[in-house]
């Protein structure tokens, strides 16, 4: 394999290398997750599979082939590209750019201080404001972010999967209310998954129990007031990105979802009233066939869990609805244009796997936040798949393949085993508290590194087919304007001085009283009231924290002014 940096002159040919390449063959005869793969699969590999019971047509239980009878013939998947950087106005510009290029939904990404629920002017936020997403300290930011965007017509995914999700969600619906839009018409998704976020956004600010209580507030609120809104996008994607394998992605994601479902039922909701609005966020990685089988296995297993374990009766409650984000961890900075090819393969995984909403990564992501140009290519990738290839014309075109059906079964069996193991520990929250999940992630990261080092896993440009490093990223590197942080801090300070302090005080007082009423009290309406008075994320989170016996500030630096 040609793995040395080219130092020869162009006209030299290494004859040995050429011969070696001619006779080369695959050396890794397992899937990415380690399932052995045979020479060929035959009808014998489908023995014992009953089509009606195990596979079934698309739109029929257990939905192995898709959740809709005609899949994309009814409607394409939602084509999203995530936007979120610097100030709200910068992100607004990017969203409009994407809209004009043809996205069919938005996806908004927040910065890390927002995830933590601290204001831009908090001393701990320094260096992070607007850096890895948009800063959303107050309703004013959300208003600017959504300026000119018709909320009653578009589908928006809010990516803020932490215990601050209820505040970001409330910011969004409050903007809609202020514009006179009936919130029952809003369509979109909130990444309302604080359990996963402890592995992906750093150590969380709030304890698990309070985080889950707030997550359930969103589920309950939407169940009563917002029929088209997806209340949770349970994030198996970020878990997978840490290096765990396909069956673990399914098992961890489903166990996390089950925590929210159990709590929502404890709150008094009927499973059939809310399960139809639980959705998932899965990865699509480079092991093309395994990843397609994974999505099919997940669909079948989720249907069984909802029907058998939770006794859901409505078909809508059994359906595994999911968005895919192509695997960021598969992208490499070496020869970065090759990433466009990786993303294309992964996007095809998602479509052949029956995805509802797709986000393609941009080729420059290992180097920086995406530029306009790289995001346009990411979107074009989706459009080329949809309009040029014909893959959307029939449901589950790979269904019935001896190999795919066999692998779908194996992945499901393995996921069931892991789920059993987690159940025996007392569920995902317990497995997390015991740091069992941490150990799994650690093992996976080490194994991945070893496989790359010993070339068991070949990554083109990394451990094979290396070229001299490129001096420049093709298309240029997107940079956050350096004045962003300073300006946003000034904006927040000025807001705090100019808003009606009396109104802030009144609404914060009401929020505190509500929060003190205990877990069963839904806080969304009082959060929304406080937002209208321009109370900030830090003030709202702090008030709730205090009511739950915690320090106002997760860092214990700021004190409540109200």
């Amino acid at each position, binding site marked *: 394999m040609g793995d040395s940096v080219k130092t020869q002159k162009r006209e030299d040919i290494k004859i040995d290398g050429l011969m070696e390449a001619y006779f080369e063959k695959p050396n890794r005869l397992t899937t990415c997750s380690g399932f052995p793969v045979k020479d060929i699969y035959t009808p014998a590999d489908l023995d014992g599979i009953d089509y009606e019971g195990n596979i079934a047509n698309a739109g029929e239980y257990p939905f192995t082939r898709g959740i809709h009878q005609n899949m994309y013939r009814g409607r394409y998947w939602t084509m999203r590209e995530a936007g979120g950087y610097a100030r709200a106005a910068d992100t607004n510009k990017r969203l409009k750019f994407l809209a004009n290029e043809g996205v069919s939904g938005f996806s908004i990404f927040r910065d890390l201080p927002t995830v933590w629920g601290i204001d831009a002017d908090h001393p*701990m936020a320094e*260096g*992070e404001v607007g850096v890895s997403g948009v800063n959303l300290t107050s309703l004013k930011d959300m208003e600017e972010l959504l300026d000119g965007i018709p909320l009653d017509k578009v589908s928006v995914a809010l990516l803020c999967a932490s215990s601050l999700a209820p505040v970001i969600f409330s910011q969004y619906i409050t903007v809609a209310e202020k514009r006179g839009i009936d919130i029952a018409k809003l369509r979109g998704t909130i990444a309302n998954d604080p359990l996963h976020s402890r592995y992906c956004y*750093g150590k969380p600010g709030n304890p698990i129990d309070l985080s889950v209580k707030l997550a359930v507030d969103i589920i309950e609120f939407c169940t009563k007031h917002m029929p088209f809104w997806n209340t949770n996008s349970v994030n198996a994607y970020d878990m997978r990105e840490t*290096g765990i394998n396909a069956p673990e992605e399914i098992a961890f994601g489903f166990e996390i979802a089950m925590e929210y479902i159990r709590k929502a039922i404890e709150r008094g909701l009927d499973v059939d009233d809310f399960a139809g609005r639980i959705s998932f966020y899965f990865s699509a990685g480079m092991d093309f066939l395994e990843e397609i089988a994974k999505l099919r296995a997940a669909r079948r297993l989720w249907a069984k869990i909802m029907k058998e374990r939770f006794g859901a009766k409505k078909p809508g409650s059994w359906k595994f609805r999911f968005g895919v984000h192509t695997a960021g961890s598969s992208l490499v900075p070496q020869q970065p244009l090759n990433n466009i090819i990786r993303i294309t393969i992964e996007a095809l995984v998602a479509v052949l796997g029956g995805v509802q909403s797709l986000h393609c990564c941009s080729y420059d992501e*290992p180097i920086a936040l995406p530029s306009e140009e790289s995001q346009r290519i990411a979107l074009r990738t989706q459009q080329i798949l949809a309009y040029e290839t014909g893959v959307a014309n029939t449901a589950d075109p790979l269904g019935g393949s001896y190999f795919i059906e066999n692998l779908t079964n194996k992945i499901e069996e393995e996921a069931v085993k892991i789920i059993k193991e987690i159940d025996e520990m007392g569920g995902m929250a317990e497995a997390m508290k015991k740091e069992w999940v941490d150990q799994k992630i650690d093992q996976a990261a080490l194994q991945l*590194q070893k496989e790359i080092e010993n070339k068991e896993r070949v990554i083109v440009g990394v451990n094979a087919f290396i070229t001299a490093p490129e001096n420049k990223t093709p298309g240029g590197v997107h*940079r956050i304007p350096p004045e962003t942080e300073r300006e946003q801090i000034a904006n927040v300070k000025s807001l705090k001085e100019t808003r009606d302090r009396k109104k802030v005080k009144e609404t914060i007082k009401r929020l505190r009283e509500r929060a003190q009423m205990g877990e069963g009290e839904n806080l969304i309406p009082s959060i929304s009231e406080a937002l209208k008075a321009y109370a900030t994320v830090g003030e709202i989170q702090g008030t709730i924290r205090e009511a739950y016996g915690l320090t106002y500030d997760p860092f214990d630096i700021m004190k409540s002014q109200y």
Partner: protein
Amino acid sequence: MEAAKKEKIRVLFTRNLFEGHDIGLRGIVHKCRESGIEVVYYPRFKDFNEVVKVAEEEDVDIVGISSSSGAHVYLAEGLISSLRERGMDIPLIMGGVISDKDILRLKEFGVKGIFGPGSTPDEVVSFIFTLLDKH
């Protein structure tokens, strides 16, 4: 501190409280340990003084920071000045999603080694051995 030669090189690896990414860092920690380097792994720090304190107490030879959120310039500036205030001359190395342009800036601040996208754990290990040989 007694100048008695320690048997092994000791490195403190850590990252900012907000930092989510850690696959790269996990790989480096593992590789260093395999190569006979003693690693003090401090999962996350809240402020720079905390890093300085751990570095001092653990008597490390190098501090390594992993940063992929975009805050690397801020982190380098803050940490180096905190180390200097304390009169400590421990070399700082950094890795993560750091663009070429920022690598130059970090070098100006005095960051000794910078391992941007595409760097390997082996490169980090051999850099540490070379640096401390000279140091």
